[in-house]
């Protein structure tokens, strides 16, 4: 523990003046002056040439790359600044309707929320990827679909190579020989240094966004970058301080173009990365970059990248403390992932052990295997409060016993799952030649990513679980066991949103067991809700793409949508509920006690949620905990919170977000946004600038349980 004490007393380093200035420019949007007003229109030429969908997607990548203006700022070591704002459409709306032929897109359409095999891409380089494509074309001669795909993939590779070449030439012309050398090597050839690896990654990743993809993950950054840094260090080409600064510059660069990325709110962009955890062979994957990346996240203190850390009970306390230093500044990073629970869960869900050990997260928390998954981890949600509410009303009206209400809840959940899975079977994933280049085996098989990879599962969020369990527990305790509330009166009160029934509402809220207190009288219902949800997903069978349905414990934005309704949403909304929640009141984000209920504290919360069988709910979804920033005033607070993380691991919970906030600051930020422009908060699977959030999201955060105040 002495190491931690020393760390705590040391003054934590800040960004170098060069990077502080770079960060300032980006936050001020000074680089927006490079953005062009021109739009790239590929429609006309696609029609002229009679291109099919795959060819059009490739042409888009090519034209977007060509339209980029080269931007090299004098102080940049890692370059690329997006200058083209909008991504062109590939079909006119009516043509798109025709192509869909009754099938539906997921969200905006283009493939999103997956993660490339960055280790493979950096290690092979694009010329080798091109060779792999050529080899497949030769091997699959006669397979027209393969030929079209491979040619399209090559078109995208050539476009990226040409873009890199233009950057290299410009660098040379500016007298930036160092930069020109890097860009002449990568992404064409395998990266040979840490800097080349970062530059290659920056460019290849940015082109995903240019191609219309979004929520583009960064995967296990410390795993695939460490070999480059290790060799630099061994050969004396770079020291740790220089490497740290390069990594920080890379992190800053991820914030340059993010205002152009689509998402529910700005910040919801899925630039997530994973640190630490087991290697594919089961050994410990923690390396010096693990801590460096957390340090970089703390120093850069911007909303990207979103940092996740894999832990086990053997994770050393020093690394946990580094994570807590990052927690302390309030970005909501890292999100803690418990390998001891997640890896067996993925194996139980059909993932090979080596792949399961290699998991990262999609945009928010959903577990995916980089390079090997074409999974759609968020095809919809079930509203557990709606399932419980319908069951409670129907059961009470029919004068049934409580067991029957539970059975009705199960049936309602199953029905909701059926509705989600039914619409998901008509899902259409459009071709993605550039993303295919970056995945494991697409080029080799001559098949586009849209046709699937090794893993092709769909994920469903299980939202509002605490409110649902609390509602059922309140009915069981107050209507059935203690007979304090008359069923008809309860139904009337729910219908009228507790109009004139404040005392009843208080009783429901205060005199019944609540999730978060390690109380089996309600936690058993929570466990059962997720079990039945998992049963229903299992019963739904194949998803039409060779995968199955993965239930999860996350909510994404459904903690607001399911309470208030949302345009285009097919999931049911619910009014006032029997846990004493008023109509329209938000649910908790992912796993957390219901808003406004009293809980004993953060340990009891771990014990309540530790009862879930996470082997059955492996789509992910974090226990979400807010810590008061005042908790960190104590001299050994870092150590205490690190021990709390260990307790989380020991509790058997799966994933945890620890957010640090100060409610007074948040309230002030609502009144005086100009004073808090850089205030970052974790929203759900992502963090955003508080003042840029819609008010409903701001209010939900202010209303969360805050521990340690």
């Amino acid at each position, binding site marked *: 523990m002495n190491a931690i004490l020393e760390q705590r007393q040391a003054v934590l380093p800040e960004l170098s003046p060069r990077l502080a200035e770079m960060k300032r420019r980006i936050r001020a949007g000074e680089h927006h002056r490079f953005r062009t007003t021109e739009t790239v229109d590929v429609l006309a030429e696609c029609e002229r040439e009679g291109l099919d969908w795959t060819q059009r997607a490739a042409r888009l990548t090519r034209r977007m790359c060509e339209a980029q203006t080269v931007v090299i700022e004098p102080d940049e070591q890692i370059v690329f600044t997006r200058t083209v704002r909008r991504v062109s459409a590939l079909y006119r709306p009516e043509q798109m309707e025709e192509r869909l032929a009754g099938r539906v897109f997921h969200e905006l359409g283009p493939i999103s929320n997956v993660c490339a095999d960055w280790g493979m891409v950096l290690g092979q380089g694009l010329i080798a990827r091109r060779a792999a494509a050529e080899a497949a074309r030769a091997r699959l001669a006669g397979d027209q679909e393969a030929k079209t795909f491979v040619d399209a993939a090559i078109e995208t590779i050539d476009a990226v190579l040409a873009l890199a070449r233009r950057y290299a030439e410009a660098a040379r012309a500016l007298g930036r020989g160092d930069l020109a050398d890097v860009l002449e090597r990568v992404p064409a050839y395998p990266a040979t240094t840490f800097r080349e690896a970062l530059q290659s990654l920056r460019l290849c990743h940015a082109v995903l966004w240019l191609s219309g993809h979004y929520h583009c993950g960064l995967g296990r950054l410390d795993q695939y970058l460490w070999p480059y840094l290790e060799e630099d260090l061994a050969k004396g080409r770079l020291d740790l301080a220089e490497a740290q600064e390069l990594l920080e510059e890379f992190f800053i660069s991820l914030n340059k173009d993010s205002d152009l990325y689509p998402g529910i709110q700005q910040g919801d962009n899925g630039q997530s990365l994973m640190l630490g955890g087991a290697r594919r062979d089961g050994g410990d994957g923690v390396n010096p970059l693990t801590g460096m990346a957390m340090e970089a996240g703390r120093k850069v203190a911007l909303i990207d990248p979103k940092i996740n850390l894999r832990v086990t009970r053997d994770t050393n306390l020093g690394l946990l403390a580094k994570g807590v230093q990052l927690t302390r500044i309030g970005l909501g990073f890292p999100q803690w992932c418990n390998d001891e629970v997640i890896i067996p869960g993925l194996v139980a869900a059909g993932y090979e052990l080596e792949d399961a050990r290699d998991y990262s997260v999609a945009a928010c928390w959903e577990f995916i295997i980089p390079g090997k998954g074409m999974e759609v981890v968020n095809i919809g949600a079930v509203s557990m409060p709606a399932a419980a509410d319908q069951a409670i009303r129907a059961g009470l009206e029919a004068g049934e016993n409580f067991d029957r209400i539970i059975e009705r809840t199960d049936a309602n959940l199953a029905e909701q799952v059926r509705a989600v899975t039914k619409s998901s079977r008509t899902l259409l994933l459009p071709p993605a030649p550039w993303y295919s280049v970056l995945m494991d085996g697409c080029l080799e098989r001559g098949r586009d990513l849209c046709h699937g990879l090794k893993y092709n599962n769909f994920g469903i969020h299980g939202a509002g679980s605490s409110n649902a369990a609390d509602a059922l527990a309140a009915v069981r305790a107050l209507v059935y066991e203690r007979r304090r509330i008359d069923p008809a009166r309860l139904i009337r009160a729910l219908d009228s949103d507790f109009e004139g029934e404040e005392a009843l509402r208080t009783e429901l809220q205060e005199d019944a067991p609540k999730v978060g207190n390690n109380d089996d009288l309600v936690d058993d219902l929570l466990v059962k809700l997720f079990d039945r949800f998992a049963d229903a997903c299992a019963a739904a069978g194949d998803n039409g793409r060779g995968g199955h349905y993965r239930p999860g414990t996350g909510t994404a934005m459904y903690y607001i949508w399911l309470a208030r309704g949302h345009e285009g949403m097919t999931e049911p909304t619910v009014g006032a509920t029997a846990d004493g929640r008023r109509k329209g009141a938000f649910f908790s984000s992912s796993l957390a006690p219901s808003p406004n209920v009293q809980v004993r504290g953060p*340990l009891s919360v771990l014990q309540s949620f530790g009862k879930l069988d996470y082997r059955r709910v492996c789509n992910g979804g974090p226990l979400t905990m807010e810590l008061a920033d005042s908790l960190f005033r104590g001299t050994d607070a870092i150590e205490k919170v690190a*021990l*709390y993380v260990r307790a989380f691991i020991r509790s058997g919970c799966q994933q945890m977000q620890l957010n640090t906030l100060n409610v007074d600051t948040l309230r002030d930020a609502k009144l005086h946004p100009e004073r808090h422009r850089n205030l970052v908060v974790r929203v759900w699977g992502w963090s955003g600038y508080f003042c840029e959030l819609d008010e409903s999201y701001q209010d939900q955060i202010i209303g969360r349980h805050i*521990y340690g105040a």
Partner: protein
Amino acid sequence: MKADTSGVVFDIRELTIHDGPGLRTTVFLKGCPLHCAWCHNPEGRSRDPEVLHGPNGDRLAGRSYRADELAALLNRQSPLLAEGGVSFSGGEPLMQAAFLEAVLERLEGLHVVVGTTGYASAKDFLSIVRRCDLVLFDLKLLDPEAHRRWAGGDNRVILENLKRLADLGSPYLIRVPLVPGVTDTEANLRAIARHVRELPGRRPRVELLPYNLAAGGKYAACGLEWRPEYDETAPCRTDLTPFQEFEVEAIVL
């Protein structure tokens, strides 16, 4: 000790920061024989449950627990408290020594810390500290008059118990609340340092707790007026020199 011995608890908090090593849950026992002018837990003074009238509505402070009930509640947390334990604070936990002893007897494998003013009978004091893994012993003022004036009570009782604790040889720490112009004076800190130096056995560490400006926060809710007779805005002296001089290990928390 009987399982149905009952006691009054005014709060149970998880993940407390200042109540001992590691990850801890702290039980606050109600009732205190002293009335320190800087007390920041005024609801811990009276032994009886009372209703607090706070800005967010009324709240009952104080709930009766049976010893086996409280012990069971704490034992259920023991899987998560392996790197820490439970702490008992107050009020003055020794005011309910029989209850506390009955609880401690029933704890299973939990590291136990008790924070005490030391103002208790020798019998009560020993019955509890013998069962603790660590004692946090408050030492406020060494001058008997000053102690009577600011904290109430005879500090000879406290110093005798401190001697008993030292004789026992089990781990303990000295905690000194720093109150501007009252306990943080050079004379008082020197007297404490000298006293600690002369204690038998292994010399304990002294932890200085800087004054908490939120001390008066809960008085209104308790129906009391917060009117400190010292200047609470004055800077706190956190001078460790007297301790260094007497070769006593000291830190500021």
